């Protein structure tokens, strides 16, 4: 929104009306030039040009391969979102804002039962109601679908069974909303109610009627959807620990709580093509699922992504209501609009899994982390959704940023009769991360060392491999910890604040794009593709399928193209709404968009740049290597008076060809191990973050108020610092909700008691602490201009930071989120009783006397810092794998060095006896194995 291309009347701010507004219509329009007519080179913004190519932008983390593509135009500048004007004027069109001629209204009939067989559906009364145009039931679309190809277990509407209250049974379309609602109420369904399951632990038991049946892969007759066993490292290292932590955690389910409820408009157009308007984060998967369910080829469907009023993972599955709208539209031949009530948003859910997590952690005499044991039982609700992946993420995303002696994970995801859980910001990593970071805090306390120093002395360096084989590239973890320590004045506060005031630290680690796409056929299909088209007008049209959901992806793509071509960002027009025009993109999940799409966009832009410079070569006579781009002009490097305008070069390049077209694609490099599940959690880069939070606890009521957060996040390179800070602060808000007040409350009858925004308590502005966002730039070698993700990772550390701060304030650890005042109060009351304290204001607070280990850790972390700096700048390129800290040689496979070094994905018979809650499912056999028994 800066700079010149606003063709709006105005410009003279002098002429003002009495009410202070400008007089409209009297001013000239600004000339819509393409600029670049100056004979001499205009001043370049050298602050935004890297040192390596002669600018002033400092590069503490070293150079980057994209440096040569930098022109100082857009990257690194605080850039307002390119679609901000549409949003602030109310012109942005979200799902329910699509109003087509002749539209009718669809309404969904939902199950009132937790679990039941649908015996029959009588639609006659509804059909008889004047104004009702169509009714559809599961029979109209029997094909199953699901976001993951391995777990297609959803239907447009119940085919045989309903699996939770609110599950779809039928749908109606009528001339108006009142009629549609009435018709929905008139549909009579005959159910045979089945025994429902609500307790997550019950999901592990054999039952008569499992919620889904997986055939020969079904484990016993339980409700297990997915189980994972992973073990790496040397288990014997955990013997004789100096410190040991055991934490049994309960996490309630949380919902994304985006402000825009789901809405969809389906229009079977006169050409027989389906135009589907939907606020989707992942339009491509919806596209695939629609084709499957409607039994039409994909090219007969155009998925139009509307503006998305917040996604956070909750708009990334293909949804049954999208199918319903399409089916109703096919039946009636008219556009059908379905908009959800807030309650229905909770019925589709896909929020964070309710989980029971147990962690056991060990540290040895040197303060090294000798083992992590994680056992996670997660509640998937009625459907698989992303659950297959979540089951892995709950474990594997805890394998960094620390160097571990051994890692042991058992995970199980079960079906219960609740709305399905799925992917939500920080997918799968949030809960275990919280448990692990709190565990570290506890171990630090046991060893009487500073928890920040404990972390600093155990970090994996840049360019290393985790215990499970993830390839870490850039790594700004250490710097992040340093910065929050400084910013928060940690050393003067930690364990020194009075009762009721506390400070705590937490770290995070998250994937920046998933290494394997979910749909990997055809085999070498790129993760992201971007097309660029430049015609004689000079405007650059960028076609991308990246789904802008408010995170600023469109802006990021526009920025990188503007950067490469040295054009004002207003000249870049990103078109990303329609599947007809945009290349396939896998969507906005797993924090992949900036990393992958911006990389693809850079590639395409470089191709355009090459074409322009070729043309300039012909005209100016100098080789492209000697030409530079700057603000709509191309110059001869050594004599800027020799130059031509961008437009002239463009027209030259267009000779005999027409518009310039380029396509760029991104596919992540091959990486990772070969064990089962090795692909889960693999990413081309990882983000790191460290937060320090300060809290006030009212010891009489148990109310917690988070007052300050210092939030350092390593996003590689902040393409748009404004947006990165927005993501960090927004993540704090969302994470704070989960740690303090948000929960999906299932009552004693298993009903969701709070499907509304009054009782589902998203923090208001008064609950927000002051957040100091700190951006760490570790310059990822493979990221676009060094960038990594910033959308999900920043959420992780806030939970443990707050829980640890609460401990610092009142000396009590509570392992049951959210920390609602009643729980905190109950814990305080219990402690008072135990210790015979009368008045809550007399509670003892934890204090810290350093042990001898502290100095050792500090020395170690200082040495590691030198090591890390060298590695980050590629001065040290030796191999580094997890295990070096324990004295192993990184160049010999660890299995060959250490007898006990394991890499296994199945428990041994001896291990079966000692597995945790989720792990106990390995005692059961799959159906195919049972058949073998007989």
């Amino acid at each position: 929104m800066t700079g010149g291309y606003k063709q709006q009347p105005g410009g003279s701010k002098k002429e003002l009306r009495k009410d202070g507004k400008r007089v409209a219509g009297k001013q000239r329009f600004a000339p819509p030039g393409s600029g670049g007519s100056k004979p001499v080179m205009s001043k370049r913004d050298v602050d935004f040009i890297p040192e390596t190519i002669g600018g002033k932008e400092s590069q503490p983390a070293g150079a980057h391969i994209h440096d040569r593509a930098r022109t100082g135009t857009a990257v690194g500048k605080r850039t307002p979102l390119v679609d901000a004007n549409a949003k602030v004027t109310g012109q942005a069109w979200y799902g329910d804002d699509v109003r087509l001629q002749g539209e009718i209204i669809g309404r969904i009939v939902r199950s009132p039962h937790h679990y039941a067989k649908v015996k029959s559906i009588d639609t006659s009364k509804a059909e008889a109601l004047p104004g009702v145009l169509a009714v559809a039931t599961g029979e109209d679309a029997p094909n199953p679908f699901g976001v993951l190809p391995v777990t297609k277990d959803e239907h447009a509407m119940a085919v045989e069974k309903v699996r939770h209250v609110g599950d779809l049974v039928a749908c109606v379309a009528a001339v108006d909303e009142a009629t549609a609602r009435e018709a929905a109420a008139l549909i009579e369904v005959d159910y045979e109610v089945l025994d429902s399951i609500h307790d997550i632990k019950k999901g592990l038991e054999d039952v008569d009627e499992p919620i889904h049946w997986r055939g020969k892969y079904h484990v016993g007759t339980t409700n297990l959807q997915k189980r994972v066993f992973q073990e790496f490292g040397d288990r014997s290292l955990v013997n004789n620990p100096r410190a040991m932590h055991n934490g049994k955690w309960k996490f309630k389910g949380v919902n994304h709580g985006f402000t825009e409820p789901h809405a969809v408009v389906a229009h079977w157009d006169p050409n027989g093509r389906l135009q589907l308007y939907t606020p989707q984060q992942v339009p491509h998967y919806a596209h695939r699922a629609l084709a499957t369910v409607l039994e039409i080829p994909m090219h007969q469907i155009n998925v139009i992504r509307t503006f998305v009023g917040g996604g956070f993972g909750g708009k990334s599955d293909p949804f049954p209501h999208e199918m319903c709208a399409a089916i109703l539209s096919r039946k009636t031949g008219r556009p059908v609009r379905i908009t959800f009530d807030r309650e229905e948003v909770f019925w589709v859910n896909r929020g964070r899994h309710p989980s029971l997590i147990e962690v056991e952690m060990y540290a040895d005499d040197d303060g090294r982390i000798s083992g992590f044991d994680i056992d996670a039982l997660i509640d998937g609700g009625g459907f698989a959704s992303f659950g297959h992946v979540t089951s892995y993420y709950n474990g594997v995303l805890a394998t960094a940023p620390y160097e571990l002696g051994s890692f042991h994970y058992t995970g199980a995801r079960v079906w219960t009769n609740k709305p399905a859980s799925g992917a939500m910001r920080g997918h799968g990593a949030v809960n275990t991360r919280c448990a692990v970071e709190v565990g570290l805090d506890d171990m630090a306390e046991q060893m009487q060392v500073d928890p920040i120093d404990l972390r600093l002395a155990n970090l994996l360096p840049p360019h290393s491999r985790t215990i499970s084989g993830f390839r870490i590239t850039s790594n700004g973890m250490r710097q992040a910890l340093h910065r929050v320590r400084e910013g928060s004045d940690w050393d003067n506060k930690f364990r020194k604040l009075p009762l009721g005031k506390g400070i705590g630290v937490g770290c995070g680690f998250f994937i920046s794009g998933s290494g394997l796409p979910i749909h990997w056929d055809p085999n070498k299909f790129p993760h992201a593709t971007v097309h660029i088209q430049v015609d004689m007008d000079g405007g650059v049209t960028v076609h991308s399928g990246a789904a802008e959901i408010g995170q600023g992806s469109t802006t990021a793509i526009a920025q990188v193209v503007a950067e490469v071509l040295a054009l004002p960002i207003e000249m870049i027009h990103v078109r990303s709404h329609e599947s007809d025009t945009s290349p396939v993109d896998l969507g906005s999940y797993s924090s992949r968009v900036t990393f992958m799409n911006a990389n693809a966009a850079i590639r395409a832009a470089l191709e355009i740049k090459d074409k322009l410079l070729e043309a300039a070569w012909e005209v100016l006579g100098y080789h492209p290597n000697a030409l530079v781009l700057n603000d709509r002009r191309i110059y001869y490097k050594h004599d800027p008076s020799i130059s031509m305008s961008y437009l002239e070069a463009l027209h030259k390049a267009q000779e005999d060809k027409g518009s310039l077209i380029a396509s760029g694609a991104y596919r992540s490099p091959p990486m990772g191990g070969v064990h089962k599940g090795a692909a889960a959690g693999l990413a081309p880069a990882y983000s790191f973050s460290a937060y320090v939070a300060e809290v006030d606890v009212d010891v009489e009521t148990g109310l917690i108020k988070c007052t300050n957060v210092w939030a350092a996040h390593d996003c590689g390179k902040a393409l748009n610092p404004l947006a990165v800070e927005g993501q960090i602060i927004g993540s704090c808000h969302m994470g704070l909700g989960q740690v303090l007040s948000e929960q999906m409350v299932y009552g004693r009858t298993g009903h969701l008691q709070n499907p509304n925004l009054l009782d589902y308590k998203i923090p208001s502005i008064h609950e927000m602490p002051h957040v100091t966002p700190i951006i760490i730039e570790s310059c990822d070698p493979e990221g676009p201009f060094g960038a990594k993700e910033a959308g999900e990772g920043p959420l992780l550390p806030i939970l443990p930071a707050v829980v640890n701060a609460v401990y610092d304030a009142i000396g009590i650890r509570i392992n049951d989120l959210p920390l609602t005042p009643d729980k905190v109060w109950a814990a305080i009351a219990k402690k008072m009783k135990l210790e015979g304290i009368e008045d809550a204001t007399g509670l003892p607070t934890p204090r810290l006397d350093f042990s001898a280990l502290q100095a050792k850790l500090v020395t170690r972390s200082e040495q590691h810092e030198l090591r890390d700096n060298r590695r980050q700048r590629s001065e040290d390129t030796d191999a580094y794998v997890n295990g070096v800290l324990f004295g192993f040689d990184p160049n010999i496979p660890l299995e060959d060095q250490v007898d006990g070094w394991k890499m296994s994905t199945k428990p041994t018979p001896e291990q079966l006896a000692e597995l945790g809650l989720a792990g106990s499912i390995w005692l059961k056999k799959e159906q195919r194995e049972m058949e073998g028994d007989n």
Partner: protein
Amino acid sequence: MVGEQHIAMVPTGPSSIWKASVNGQLKEVLAPSNSILLDVLRDKVGTLGVKRGCDMGTCGCCTVMIDGIPRLSCLTLAAEVAGKDITTVEGLADGAHLAPIQQCFGDHGGSQCGFCTPGFLITAQALLNNNPNPTNEQVECAIEGNLCRCTGYQQIVESIQAAAAIHRGESELKQPASDPHPDPHPLGPDDPTMPPGHAR
């Protein structure tokens, strides 16, 4: 599912003409007497900038200004505000000129997904109309009824304070700058003003 006392949605109640000035234009629509203002604005008047986030008073996305007062249109009967002056987000800008509050929300990151933005803008504008010099606490109290899931509010408060500074005349609204160095040959080679053989 219906019990004996199920409240039938059809036929709807009696309808009558609803009149009000919406963004300075007189609107007349036929609306049933039980109509909620939000429904009338979205479905009948067509100001789709007014958003429905919860329909229950808990998100503020539906905020509109009624005679200068920010009110939740989802909790307001249309009939009660007939004849009044209603301003929705569409009415904030003066033609193509963004109001300071709109410009600042863009510039300072006050809007991410943008769904809550119309509500925030109206609430904030109403605040600034009465008090162009609010403290941060006053801003916070004013927007406590608006829910934002994306921004964590911080950049929203910054945006509002930046707009307040413009209202107080302390800083200027960013103008649509005309091209710093306009191209003299916008039509390219076909441009009659293009010097022949230029740079060849």
